């Protein structure tokens, strides 16, 4: 059954995609897809403005702020961006409903940075059937990098699975015989991390000793941390969201458990995780980054950070400047704008996919120094690099080279 689905999509894929990037043709006749006029480009998005995951709603608001800034600065090649963002409350059926609304009723040109793994999974099939670009989805699942099977969907951030591989490699370097514990959310992203770490350890013929999950409705993860210590683990991959990551750091310190402690990029915010956990307790943990943490004092004088503060002050003054989601939103939106810019006047859905898969050394103010965005017709993973950092009790100290986990 699955194969049949895939075949039908491959048949539907435009042959042009396989041809790869064509040079931008200046002065060519204007070609417009749905939602595009001489004056404007209408793009859609779904985000969680209500419901249990509404803390991520700020990503959509920050994106809207970024598009407003682009419009104030003259738009994309003279066209204003008309950004429609709908609330799906983190409920897949609602995502289907709202996405169909924006595709079939609002006639948007593309879906820009829709948020969430189960929500994007729900429209994955539909978008590829309808041939509507599902551009730079805001989730770190590894399945979005599938140019052959799903040529209309492209990811954005480094995927959790490859981050998991990086954590495992780091731990093995510290201690080739490590006894590893993993704390993960019983969820798509948690299980991706878990698989990544497990695959990474398998290279050294090791297994995860304790894999403990939590639900978002749990009050604390104390019990899980206690179990890890008493199983004799000496390495801890903590892939929880900030609230539970902070609890785990605090509890580990309280019961005097001192493993090699790796935090995932999801829970590495200074303000949201380390401060509540206590700087003293968090000292020595390592993590990986691709975005600049806005609460890390090391970026105080960084030009990219200063730009971001200016942007937030002017276009999203109500936004929380300690929330890394407000860095994520504009960075993702900037990538959409870049793809549209590269389209020139050839604003068809085919061409925007071609340009999205034709980004070369694209830099963003809030990506870590040295990290650039690159895609190709066979590589639908825009941000691939991360760098590791160690928390010194006050700020993250980057170390080592830029890393790329095996993609996919």
């Amino acid at each position, binding site marked *: 059954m699955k194969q049949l689905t895939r075949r039908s999509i491959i048949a539907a894929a435009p042959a042009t995609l396989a041809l790869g990037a064509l040079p931008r043709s200046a002065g060519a006749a204007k070609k417009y897809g749905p939602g595009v006029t001489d004056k404007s480009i209408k793009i859609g998005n779904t985000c969680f403005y209500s419901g249990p995951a509404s*803390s991520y709603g700020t990503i959509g608001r920050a994106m809207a702020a970024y598009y407003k800034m682009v419009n104030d600065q003259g738009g994309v090649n003279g066209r204003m961006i008309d950004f429609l963002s709908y609330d799906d409350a983190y409920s897949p059926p609602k995502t289907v409903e709202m996405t169909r609304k924006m595709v079939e009723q609002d006639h948007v040109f593309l879906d820009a940075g829709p948020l969430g793994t189960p929500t994007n999974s729900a429209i994955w099939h539909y978008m590829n059937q309808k041939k509507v670009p599902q551009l730079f989805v805001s989730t770190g699942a590894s399945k979005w990098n599938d140019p052959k099977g799903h040529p209309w969907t492209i990811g954005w951030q480094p995927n959790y699975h490859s981050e998991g591989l990086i954590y495992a490699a780091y731990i093995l370097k510290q201690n080739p015989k490590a006894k590893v514990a993993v704390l993960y959310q019983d969820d798509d992203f948690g299980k991706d991390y878990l698989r990544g770490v497990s695959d990474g350890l398998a290279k050294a013929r090791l297994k995860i000793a304790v894999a403990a999950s939590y639900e*978002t409705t749990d009050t604390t993860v104390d*019990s899980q941390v206690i179990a890890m210590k008493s199983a004799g683990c000496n390495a801890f991959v903590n892939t929880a969201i900030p609230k539970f990551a902070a609890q785990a750091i605090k509890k580990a310190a309280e019961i005097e458990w001192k493993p090699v402690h790796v935090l995932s990029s999801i829970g590495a915010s200074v303000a949201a995780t380390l401060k509540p956990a206590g700087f003293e307790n968090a000292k020595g943990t390592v993590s990986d980054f691709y975005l600049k943490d806005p609460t890390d004092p090391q970026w105080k004088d960084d030009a990219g950070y200063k730009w971001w503060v200016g942007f937030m002050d002017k276009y999203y003054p109500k936004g929380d400047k300690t929330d890394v989601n407000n860095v994520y939103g504009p960075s993702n939106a900037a990538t959409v704008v870049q793809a549209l810019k590269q389209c020139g006047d050839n604003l068809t859905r085919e061409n925007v996919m071609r340009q999205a898969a034709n980004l070369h050394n694209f830099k963003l103010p809030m990506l870590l120094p040295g990290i650039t965005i690159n895609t190709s017709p066979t590589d639908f993973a825009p941000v691939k690099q991360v760098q590791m950092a160690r928390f010194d009790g006050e700020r993250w100290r980057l170390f080592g080279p830029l890393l790329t986990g095996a993609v996919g």
Partner: protein
Amino acid sequence: MQLLLQQIMAGLANGAIYALVALAVVMIYQAIDHLNFAQGEMATFSSFLAWQLIAWGLPYWAAFFTAVILSFAAGVAIERVLFRPLHHAPILASLVGFIALFSILNSGDGYLWNYTIKTFPTPFGTRPLFGSALIDTHEAGMIGVTVLLLALLYLFFRRTRLGLAMRAAAANPDSARLVGIRVGWMTALGWGMAAAIGAVAGMLIAPVVFLEPNMMLGALLYGFAGAVLGGLSSPGGAVLGGFAVGIIENLAATYIPYVGRDLKLTIALIVIVAVLMVRPAGLFGRSAVSRV
């Protein structure tokens, strides 16, 4: 053995959270014969209020008591303004009222104070109690406050005129009205007390789970479970039920192989439903007698 002890103590600490919520749940149940879905969100709102007061420079205890008093007033006001008019509506109409209140408070918290988790101070400190890693001073303080609240409630309901009047109003509104008790105000008072207890619960829970708009979602779920397990008609039972849920949950996760860790919530719920099979009104509750 060390592991067992640690898991039980960690369960007890979580249980204190559930017990506090369960206590507030039972209070409101006594007053209105219903579960209040918005209870957790009311507590979260109170905690945010206290957090804001502290951020403005008020000392901890001043903020604490201001928040408790304001919550009491808000509880009374909510009853008077929102739920009094629904008094004669079908009993489930007020359920929609609770869900609406939940939605409004949750969304309002996020709008006013955003979603980044915040630290909340504790008056008890977080040193290990008696130098043991098993339990810290805040967790011990939380258990102490729960017991203290329970004792105060017991005295209030057994030894004061007002407490007796409230019990009478809840038990038999018509007869109570005949002897001159203002039943409507007793209900409002019940709401106020539940809101105040909720505020205390919220402010004691916040240092552990961190303050954010969805802070009480899980706690409320487990708090309900604890209250039902202990018996909705018995505050003492509800508190014990809360502690029991915390311990069952941890032991299930630790000692049941294969399924325990992933399904600990499910297992805890199965245990509770199983207990209810044997004691349909909870461990310490009394079954209602129906008059034909």
